[in-house]
């Protein structure tokens, strides 16, 4: 990767320092903040309590939650296909999805039911067209936020952004162990990655239910440019 | 306890009864009340309009008038808040800034003084009727006095308090705002008067002469029959 360009910077930043009445500085220490209320939210909640918070919040964001054992994930997905009248689905090329039963056998079963399977394919040019036409997109949740009913997705070549975006409906597969109280825990982990010198994924999405808008008379419409419906399938992995 | 009364210009001229009631209330709770003759206006009309040079003159006059006082008590949340503002207004002059800080420390709005300094929550008042209370913006938001008036009113025998809808909204007085932006001010006071009438209360109680002039003026124009009273008049009623 060649380095990008930075233009006009010196005069721009010098002007800022001048307006602040000081010289430019080489180093700034982040302050020890006086307030840290974000760490107190659901600080002592157990995994079950977090799940309750999560399910309650999902009612507010028009998202169905299905709780299953690990062995029941594939069946729950198939049932959701039924509700969404799925003709095809697209999912990440993710071993974790295979591990919960969305494997070759599942794909075979879906074929019998006339539901086409598409797997995100880093070496194909066809992903976007497929994503645009698939009825359902399926991803795994990298982290899950109880307070806001949010799944956190880290993009990669096998984990395309479009899977959770272009299909008309969306399913997230959520291991119960991925539940944390709120965004605080997720951003802390991301911050740790940066501190460790890792390059972050090019896209990190915090997704809380289907897309929506209240731009017309402040009246809520669910389903705008992103998915119109969303289902979270939470499985017990402990 | 020695208390100096700051009557305020509106109180002196438009609500003299509130001043009398304040004196009688304070005396009932063993305060020795005096009235420094050189007091004028707190300077808020000039300050809020941006004429800070003129506001400073008023500030210095007020500071000097109450220099010897042990406590300064005023039947106006808005003017009390203005007295608390002096130290910022005069911050370019250390000597006056210090004097202003000293004034702020000993200055109280009357209900705040009764509840928080004298520890009085029941003034022994009786008043037969239904009333609603207007929370003035400067008293609640700038001075931070939120609970004292209701604590006192709840203990008035015979008085039934009815919650005022949208009480958080400004009545549209805003000092010079009422004459500088008369149309907008009119819409705001109309809304407030409508809310007052919606309660079917006989009386509108307030703790700031400005708001009472404004809402009362609207209710009077509409021949609503709603009586407007300063809170001290109610608390002093037998």
């Amino acid at each position: 990767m060649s380095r990008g360009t930075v233009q006009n910077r010196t005069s721009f930043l010098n002007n800022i320092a001048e307006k602040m009445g000081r010289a430019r500085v080489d180093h700034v220490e982040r302050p020890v903040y006086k307030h840290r209320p974000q760490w107190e939210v659901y600080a002592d909640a157990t995994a079950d309590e977090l799940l309750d918070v999560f399910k309650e919040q999902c009612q507010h964001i028009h998202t169905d939650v299905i709780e299953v054992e690990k062995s029941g994930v594939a069946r729950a997905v198939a049932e959701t296909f039924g509700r969404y009248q799925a003709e095809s689905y697209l999912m990440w090329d993710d071993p974790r999805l295979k591990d919960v039963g969305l494997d070759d056998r599942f794909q075979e079963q879906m074929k019998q039911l006339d539901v086409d399977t598409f797997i995100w394919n880093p070496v194909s040019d066809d992903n976007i067209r497929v994503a645009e036409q698939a009825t359902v997109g399926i991803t795994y949740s990298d982290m899950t936020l109880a307070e806001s009913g949010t799944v956190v997705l880290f993009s990669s070549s096998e984990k395309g952004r479009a899977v959770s975006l272009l299909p008309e409906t969306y399913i997230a597969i959520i291991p119960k162990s991925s539940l944390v109280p709120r965004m605080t825990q997720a951003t802390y982990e991301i911050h740790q990655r940066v501190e460790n010198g890792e390059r972050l994924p090019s896209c990190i999405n915090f997704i809380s239910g289907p897309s929506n808008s209240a731009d017309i008379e402040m009246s809520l419409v669910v389903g705008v440019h992103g998915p119109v419906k969303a289902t979270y399938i939470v499985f017990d992995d402990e | 306890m020695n208390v100096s009364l700051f009557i305020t210009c509106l109180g002196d001229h438009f609500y003299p009864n509130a001043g009398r009631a304040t004196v009688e209330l304070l005396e009932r709770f063993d305060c020795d009340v005096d009235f420094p003759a050189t007091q004028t206006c707190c300077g808020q009309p000039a300050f809020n309009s941006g004429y800070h040079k003129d506001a400073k003159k008023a500030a210095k006059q007020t500071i000097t008038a109450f220099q010897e006082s042990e406590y300064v008590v005023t039947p106006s949340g808005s003017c009390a808040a203005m007295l608390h503002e002096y130290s910022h207004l005069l911050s370019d002059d250390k000597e006056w800034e210090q004097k202003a800080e000293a004034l702020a420390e000993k200055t109280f709005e009357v209900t705040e003084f009764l509840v928080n300094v004298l520890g009085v929550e029941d003034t022994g008042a009786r008043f037969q009727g239904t009333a609603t209370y207007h929370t003035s913006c400067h008293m609640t938001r700038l001075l931070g006095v939120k609970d004292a008036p209701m604590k006192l009113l709840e203990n008035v025998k015979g008085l039934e308090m009815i919650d005022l809808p949208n009480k958080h909204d400004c009545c549209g007085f805003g000092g010079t705002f009422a004459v500088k932006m008369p149309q907008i001010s009119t819409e705001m006071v109309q809304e407030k008067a409508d809310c007052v009438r919606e309660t079917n209360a006989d009386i509108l109680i307030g703790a700031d002469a400005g708001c009472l002039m404004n809402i009362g003026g609207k209710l009077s124009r509409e021949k609503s029959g709603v009586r407007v009273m300063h809170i001290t008049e109610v608390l002093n009623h037998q």
Partner: protein
Amino acid sequence: MPLRVGSDAFAERVDTGLEDAFMRGAVRSAQERLRERKHTSSEQLGDWEAWRDHGEEIRTHTLNHLDYYLEQLSDNIAEMGGHVFFAETAEEANAYVREVARKKEAKKIVKSKSMVTEEISLNEVLEADGREVIETDLGEYILQIDDHDPPSHIVAPALHKNRSQIRDVFTERKGYSKTDDPDELTRFAREQLRQEFLDADLGITGCNFAVAESGSISLVTNEGNARLVSALPKTQVTVMGMERIVPTWEELDVLVSLLCRSAVGQKLTSYITGLTGPKTEGEVDGPEEFHLVIVDNGRSKILGTQFQSALHCIRCAACVNVCPVYRHVGGHAYGSIYNGPIGAVLTPLLDGYENNKDLPYASSLCAACTEACPVKIPLHEHLIAHRQIITEKEKLGSMPERWSMRLFGTGVSRSKLYRLASKNAHLALKPWTKGDRISSGPSLIKEWTRSRDLPAPSRDRFRDWWMRRGKGEGQDE
């Protein structure tokens, strides 16, 4: 669309607003709904005041070290192969984006919501260069196809329009043939825009907060259009006001939490998207080329002044949503794309006092805005500070007002004079007094008595009573 919109004088714009019954009804119900939702969602955070304090300390620290964090941000982006352009003026920013669009031979450009691109009139520049620019936020889309009607609210730009007006716009401009049901209207917009996303050569986004430590930008949205704009076109240009930055992802959490609650009463919006550089090796979606344009356009003039905290604004519109003045006059009355209390504070700072001298007076100083602000900007104090500059420095106050204030200053600082005037107040107003009230008064009182009565000054003032009581102080001389 430039910062300033419309050419009418402030008073005329206010009249237009006051006469627009639909707009006022829409604003009122929106304010009520949002107030309720914000209240509920803020309570659930625990100690809301501690959150606000934290928001304030984060913004204060960041703005105090803005040059450092912008340098870190730009280094990190360049490291990943992205391009950063620092634009001191709107013209520089627009010229840069125009050049990127030319190089990419971009015919079709899709845009997600961005206030700063409105402020610098980027669309006009690109359109003049022969490119098609499509706003994809539903509200912005409606305004764009309705002959570029200006936004009236920072978060909900088409708040002033009702559903039947929107249906008519869709029908006339886009051949829509269904009802005015918001679901159907939205569905139509989705269908209209989907192909545009797929065909676009260039995507332009705003930026809610950039994250210095990782060279990321974040987008806080509900509709999903910003995700499409940043995932599908081969080139992405993000335009940010220079103050929209946080040091690390930890601060991002706090500000995003405050923003979502304050803006729309949601815990998080449907999508919080963190974008870090162009797509990486092997990735299919995401832009091949990423440009960040960091815009000053007058902001640096605010740094180091008493107004610096105005730059703490996170554009949540919480102040707009509680403002009673905004409720009655609507967003267009402010004549600026930044409206409500924050608009009245920011517009004169960015655009000067000359054309905006009425804005700081469009407030009763009730301080509901200050109380609502999630990062504790003392908005009403800034309005007073503006008024001071307008009257004492710019000398833009009217002559009668200046004289009456001078008279006031003299009167209140000489107690004898004050007492003389005080004693005679009821006499001066006697000709207009009927009983205990004045229903039609002279000069300034006339404005008051147009819609309400004024109690007549009492002949028996407090002072008179006090004197009779025999304590001997406060008497007239």
